[in-house]
Structures are given as C-alpha cells and as structure tokens.
C-alpha cells in the first residue's frame, strides 16, 4: 500500500494526472492492447476458422442485414464473409505482437551492443558506431524492407509463409537498434569513469555485474522513451510492409494486410472494409506516439 501511495505521489504520476492528452492516449492504447489480448474471448466470430465463414455473407454493410442470409454484423464483412470487427481484433493482436517483439529485440540488441561499445571502447566501439552511422543515413523503413527481402531470399520457399512473421520481427528490430545503442553507449562512457564504478572494480566485482547493476539503471529512462516511440514506429513499419504485400501473409491478416485488402474494394463502394482497419491503425499509432511524446517531456529534467 505504501509503495502504491508513493508511486501515486511521484513526479511522473503527477505530470501524468495533469496531462489530459497523456491520460487519453494511455486509456486508448491500454484499451486496445487489452482488446487484442482478449480477442479470442470477446471477438464475435473466429476469422481464422474457414468452417465458420460463409461466402454468402460477403460484403455485408455495417449494421445492416445481409441481402441473402439476413445476418447482421456491427462493422460489416469483407469479400470472404469475415466479420470486420473480429478480424480487426485479431489483426491488432498480430500488429501488436510484431511491434512489441520487434521493439524488445531492438532494445536487447541495442542495449547489449551499446554497453559493449561504451564499456570496451577501442576498435569494438569504432566498428559498432561506424555501422550505426552508416545505418542511420538510410530510413529505417527502407532498412527493414531490404533486410526482409534479403532474408526471404535465403529461406526455402516451403517455409516462407510461416516464417514471415519472425523474419518481419527481426527485420524491423534490426532497423531500429541504433537509437538504443547510441544512448546506452553515451551513458556507459560517462558512468564508467565515475568513482563508484571504479570502487566496484577495485573490490573485484565482475564487469557484467557492474554493467547490469550500476550502469544500466542510469539509462532506463531514455531507453523507455525510445521504446515507446519505437513501438509506434514498429507498428507503422509492420503495417506498411504488410500493406506492400511483403509482410504478414494474407491468411493471418494484420491491420496493414486488411487495409491492403480494403483498398481493392474502394472503387466498388465497399468503404467499410478499408475504413475501420485504417482508423484502428491510426488510433493505435497516434496514441502510442502521444504517450511517448509525453514520457519524453516528463522524464526530461530540463523541462521541469
């Protein structure tokens, strides 16, 4: 109880309570994450079960009964009779899964390499930072696309579809590790010459332990900010790649895949197939982004 009270009184919590944008963004993103996790239980239909799909149900407008079957869907159905609402719930799940995994991968890789570069210095440092410099000159989405394309080439054709999601996670992760590595490296270089680290070295603490216990906690703030904004970027990257038709396979639609499908029916007037997934993606990316912006300002001591 004491702990919760103290957390409630902290600077961060205070700044959070006094920023309506942050509260709304947090509620929206948490709500969507929760809905995505609970998708199998709250979705009215199972879009991955071909047995439950009825082609006659295809193109049902939102909220109106279908002309042939009389079935009614809150947000309508797509060309194959899939309930849009359920597909969005499952699609958000896949988008979030890819986004979170990619961020986690980028974070672990970036922190490890950043610590290594900052702690070791020397040629390891120069090599890693040279790679980072080169990578930063290319836009992240292009890097992810190129890595995805190259990696796909190396996978045997039979397992391409089922491996796609993992290749996607790794490509997006690899395209974003640099930001973490730079911040962590900078902090590690500053901290390693401080007296308490020197003292720990003198009494013979293992370097890995020093890095984990003394240096890492110093960078968790900025890393958290990068991770939040990175999540928004990763979600958009995943949606973009899936939209381009090189991401998640169409059998397991993510939000980007749904938008790609919906675009085909724009001219024939079935606007709902496109609109609802697009709005979902927008709400998700925007709320996570705003949350990241707020976190950056709240953790920045110069703005206090």
């Amino acid at each position, binding site marked *: 109880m004491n702990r919760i009270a103290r957390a409630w009184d902290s600077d961060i919590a205070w700044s959070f309570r006094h920023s309506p944008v942050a509260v709304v963004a947090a509620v929206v993103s948490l709500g969507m994450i929760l809905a995505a996790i609970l998708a199998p239980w709250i979705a009215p239909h199972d879009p991955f079960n071909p047995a439950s799909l009825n082609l006659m149900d295809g193109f049902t407008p939102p909220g109106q009964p279908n002309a042939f079957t009389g079935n009614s869907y809150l947000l309508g159905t797509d060309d194959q009779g899939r309930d849009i609402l359920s597909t969005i719930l499952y699609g958000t799940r896949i988008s979030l899964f890819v986004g979170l995994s990619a961020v986690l991968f980028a974070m672990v890789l970036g922190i490890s390499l950043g610590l290594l570069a900052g702690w070791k210095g020397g040629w390891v440092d120069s090599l890693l930072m040279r790679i980072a410099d080169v990578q930063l000159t290319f836009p992240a989405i*292009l890097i992810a696309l190129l890595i995805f394309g190259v990696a796909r080439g190396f996978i045997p054709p039979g397992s391409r579809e089922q491996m796609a999601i993992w290749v996607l996670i790794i490509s997006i992760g690899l395209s974003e590790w640099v930001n973490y590595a730079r911040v962590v490296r900078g902090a590690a270089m500053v901290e390693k010459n401080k007296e308490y680290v020197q003292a720990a070295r003198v009494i013979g603490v293992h370097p890995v332990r020093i890095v984990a216990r003394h240096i890492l906690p110093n960078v968790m703030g900025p890393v958290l900010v990068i991770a939040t904004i990175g999540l928004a970027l990763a979600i958009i990257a995943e949606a973009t790649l899936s939209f381009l038709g090189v991401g998640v396979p169409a059998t397991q639609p993510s939000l980007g895949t749904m938008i790609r499908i919906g675009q085909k029916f724009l001219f024939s007037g079935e606007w709902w197939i496109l609109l609802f997934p697009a709005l979902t993606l927008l709400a998700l990316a925007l709320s996570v982004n705003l949350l990241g912006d707020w976190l950056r300002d709240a953790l920045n001591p110069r703005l206090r």
Partner: protein
Amino acid sequence: MFAFILRRLVQSAIVMLVVALVSFSLFRFVGDPVASMVGQETTLAEREALRESLGLNDPILVQFGRFVGRALQGDFGISYRLQQPVMELILSRLPATLELALVSGIVAFALGITLGVYTALNRRGWLSNFIMTASLIGVSLPTFLIGILLIWIFAVELQWLPSFGRGETVEVWGWKTGLLTPSGRASLVLPAITLGLYQMTLIMRLVRAEMLEVLRADYIKFARARGLTNRAVHFGHALKNTLVPVITITGLQLGSIIAFSIITETVFQWPGVGALFINSVQFVDVPVMAAYLMLIALVFVIINLTVDLLYYAVDPRLRVDRAAGH
C-alpha cells in the same frame, strides 16, 4: 582537406563493397542459379557444363571479383520473372521514379518554405494554428494511408484525378515523360502530394523554427530601425539566413524521398523502380533485388558524400575541429 576527402571516399567504398557482398551472396546462395536457368529436360552433364561456363565452380573470391566487375559495368544478369536484362528494366523505369521524386521534392520545398514563413510571421493567427495542427497529423499518418485517403477523396468520391498509372507518356530524346501530356500531369498530382507531404511538413517546421529564431536577432532589429520595409526585412534578411540549414536537411531528405517512393508507387501503381523492387521481393527475383540494393546504396552514398563535402566547404569550424580533435 585531402585527408578528409580520402577518408570519406574510403568509407563510401567500404559501404559499397559490403552491399555488393550482400548482393553477391543473394545471387550465389539463394536457390541454385543453374536450376533457375535451365528447363527440366536438361541432362546432368549439360548442367555441369553450364555450371562450369558460368564460372560457378571457381573459388568464391574469384566469383565475387567477377560479380563486382560486372556490376561496375552495369551488368546484373537477367530477371527471373520478366526474362529481360535487369539494367534495361531498371533504366526503362527510372524516368517514372525520377519525375515523381523531382516534382514532389520541388512541391515540398516550395510549399514548405511558403507555409513555414507564413506561420512564423503570423504566429498567433488561426490559420497558422490550423496549419501547425494539420502538420502534426500529417507527420504521424503512415504514407500509404495518406495515399489511400487522397485516392478516396479525389479519385473515388470527386472523380477529379486518376488514381493509378502514369497516364499518357511521350518520348523526348529517349526519356519517357508524362509531364508533357494533360493526362500525364493529372496522374502525377496525387502521387506527388503523397510523397511530398512528409518532407513538406518537415521543411515547414524547420523554416518556422529558424525564422522565429532569426527574427529575434539584433541585426533584424537594426534593419527595422533603419526603416526598411517589412518585405525587405522578412525576405531579404530573415529568410535568406534560414536557408542554409534548410537546404542541408532537404539534401539529406532526397534519400528518404527515394525510399518512400517504394510505398507511393505501390499505392498508385506507378510504373517506377520502387514498384519493380516490391514485385521482385514478392517473387524472390534475385537479380532485380540485387541490382536495386546496389543502386539505392549508390544513391545514398553519393548524397551523403556530397553533403559532407559541402559542409566542409561551407563551415570553416569543421576544419578547425578536425585538426584539434585528431
């Protein structure tokens, strides 16, 4: 000066070599190059002969050297999917991409500066507030959604503009251009806006911030005290001094325009190099992928090298810092 240029050149060469290595390993290790060239009835002996004549039995380093040599001459082999020389394919599609990138770059630059100056001069106006808010939304919207939104409004609902393709093209000295026909120009509008919007908001915000900074400077106060017209102060003194960083950033953004053209070309079925690349990724058309990889790396290396050298030429502080630091 010479050492600096040399270091940059060596660095660029290393980047190109690494990219070439990736391209080469794509070529060599994705599938069997022989199997993708011959029919089913080819005998084993014939395959072996082909393998020998292609030099696939040579040491890897020799093969890599040959690959680099051919790449330098623009020879990337034949596309698996379209059965045409890769370089021919890319060259035939390059005008479409370059025209799109050029037009959207110019639009982004011109509009970005105009809007940036306007919002800086009328900081409290409702129109400025509206523009700033709209630009915030513009930055957070994914490019492909902007494209779809524009298609929905201007092609489906209003039916003012075409939603796909380049329209009619005419050939001028071997360059297929869409800029000279009415349908070609109409087709260019939506893709150019989609591609330029992000860069435009970026330039606009930069110009606004720089202008606000410069307008507070002493020499602006002095210019006003001398009784110069607002016009002379704003455009002759203030804008001129904001342009240096703006031009640098715009130069660096050229690369992003090429990267995002992949997305825009897919949304609008624009027959450019980016769309060619996406198709080649879907079909694992290795020669096209490898060539695109090299091409894009070359473009980025050239842009960065130019910007670095320009910096060096423009900013004397850089020279002093270098000398002191190393």
